[in-house]
């Protein structure tokens, strides 16, 4: 681990203290995890504190951890309590370092997180995207509309239980003389099955 990452981790521990749930350094990248309750306050500190100064939020995305490490989507009672997360990639131009900030929503059925729009105005569309694709609500966001999917789309397509072929397809109906939706007619298929191997398969990336 380089001296710079050491310094960043030390600064994070000094400034955030108890609010850190986990702080991991892996492959030269620092990942910080906080509780949903502290999320907004931590984000503001990360931006404003002179030892941290993350001026830019480069990316924010939703992640669905429901089938992590599994081959298929698990049964309802097998899903962990922490399913949906928002991951933000922060960048500090002053110190030239990056940080990954992760926060898990507490409720799987209705995931709600604070919006970071007032901290970094640029995350506006990223939060709309995470809402659209994962159904994560961002309280405090002033314009939480769907962004990538069709007008009137039902469901959140990037959730792990949403099939890759979707539920409906579109076609032109010559009698109604307009485009109509109908249930998908394609058979689901998987060309390459998903396989999870034991660790260090083939000794690739063995950092032993």
């Amino acid at each position, binding site marked *: 681990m380089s001296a710079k990452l050491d310094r960043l981790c030390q600064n994070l521990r000094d400034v955030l203290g108890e609010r850190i749930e986990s702080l991991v350094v892996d492959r030269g990248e620092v990942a910080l995890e906080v509780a949903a309750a502290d999320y907004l306050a931590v984000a503001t500190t990360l931006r404003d504190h002179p030892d941290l100064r993350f001026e830019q939020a480069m990316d924010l995305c939703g992640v669905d951890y429901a089938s992590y490490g599994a081959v298929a989507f698990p049964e309802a009672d097998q899903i962990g309590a922490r399913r949906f997360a928002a991951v933000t990639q922060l960048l500090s131009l002053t110190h030239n370092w990056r940080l990954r900030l992760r926060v898990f929503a507490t409720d799987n059925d209705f995931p709600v997180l604070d919006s970071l729009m007032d901290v970094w105005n640029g995350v506006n*569309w990223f939060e709309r995207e995470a809402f659209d694709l994962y159904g994560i609500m961002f309280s405090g966001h002033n314009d939480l509309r769907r962004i990538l999917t069709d007008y009137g789309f039902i469901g959140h397509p990037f959730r792990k239980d949403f099939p*890759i072929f979707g539920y409906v397809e579109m076609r032109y109906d010559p009698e109604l003389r307009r485009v109509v939706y109908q249930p998908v007619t394609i058979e689901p298929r998987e060309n390459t099955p998903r396989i999870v191997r034991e660790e260090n398969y083939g000794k690739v990336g063995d950092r032993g």
Partner: protein
Amino acid sequence: MAEIKNYTINFGPQHPSAHGVLRLVLELDGEVVVRADPHIGLLHRGTEKLMETRTWIQSLPYMDRLDYTSMLVNEHPFVLAIERLLGIEVPIRAQYIRVMFAEITRILNHLLSIGTHALDVGAMAMVLYTFREREDIFDMLEAVSGARMHGAYFRPGGVYRDLPDSMPKYEINKFKNAQTVKELNAAREGSLLDFIEDFTSRFPVYCDEYETLLTDNRIWKQRLVGVGVVSPERALQLGFSGPMLRGSGVEWDLRKKQPYEVYDRLDFDIPVGVKGDSYDRYLVRMEEMRQANRIIRQCISWLRANPGPVITDNHKVAPPSREKMKGSMEELIHHFKLFSEGMHVPPGEVYVGTEHAKGEFGVYMISDGANKPYRVKLRSAAFQHLAAMDELAKGHMLADVVTLIGTIDVVFGDVDR
């Protein structure tokens, strides 16, 4: 007197200067924009979701199809992210080849960006000149990868194959006589490197031509100067990157600040703007093309002097050569496993941001040890820039919206993913 009301119009998705499928709902007060609401997603193909169902290598060609005007710079962060997850070393020659082609595609992107921007605001001739040079670049990509646009040339662990020793040539047909063919083939007699070097020696002259057409052009300046001014503070708040950030005077380039591959061994300068308007961003892009040309020349001279392997010899990641595969049982098994089951990437997560032609292109990957990614997030610069459309367009005239779309340099494959 008649009551004057605000007027809402749809700009696109079939508008020729919407650069693809942008539906922009504009609320106008007379001819002044009060609110701009971009509706995107008309080209959403669910690339990230598709990647979750494909092996690591099968997902690579999707990267070309994101920003389809600058293909190989898209692949760059994707392969870098896989390599960082795997923790493998890439041969130095492969790194130089990748940097060279990343810069070639940067020129490709800026040529399209400036050419069509000029076309949109009324300088019809520009696009003819810039597309002439794009043809040469497509020929380079075709020679090296077999495809004019979607190369799929960068692979985890290196590049697909070494640079070819000969260039494809024009042939005599009923449209081209022997004399024409001879002229067209003049630069194609040698290797690909000779062809690229010939291009780099011609290219600064072309840049001068573009500057003659645009830089001091009165109409061009009237359309661009003072349009879409972004202060450095706002640019940071809005998450800008690339020429949009540098145009506002923030000196920030990942190739310099967080060098990846061999950028730290190369000599180039970072242009920055002063006012942060569309004209400054145009100047930044012009200068970036010249700097990219410089980088390419340095790569060519290094590549000429240093032959070597171009892909890693770890056959869990990269396939063995055809010759070895036919002769050895072990290599055959490697080949079969790699292309059926695919490689397994150790669990973990990485975010790799690279300096794309449009800004920071980031790939965030989570692996759970399977032969497929668990989650891939593609962070494209144009998405973020388009999100600021409302702020940029507010108070400008309707005609300036065209300028703004051009200066943002949107490509919808990239925005919608």
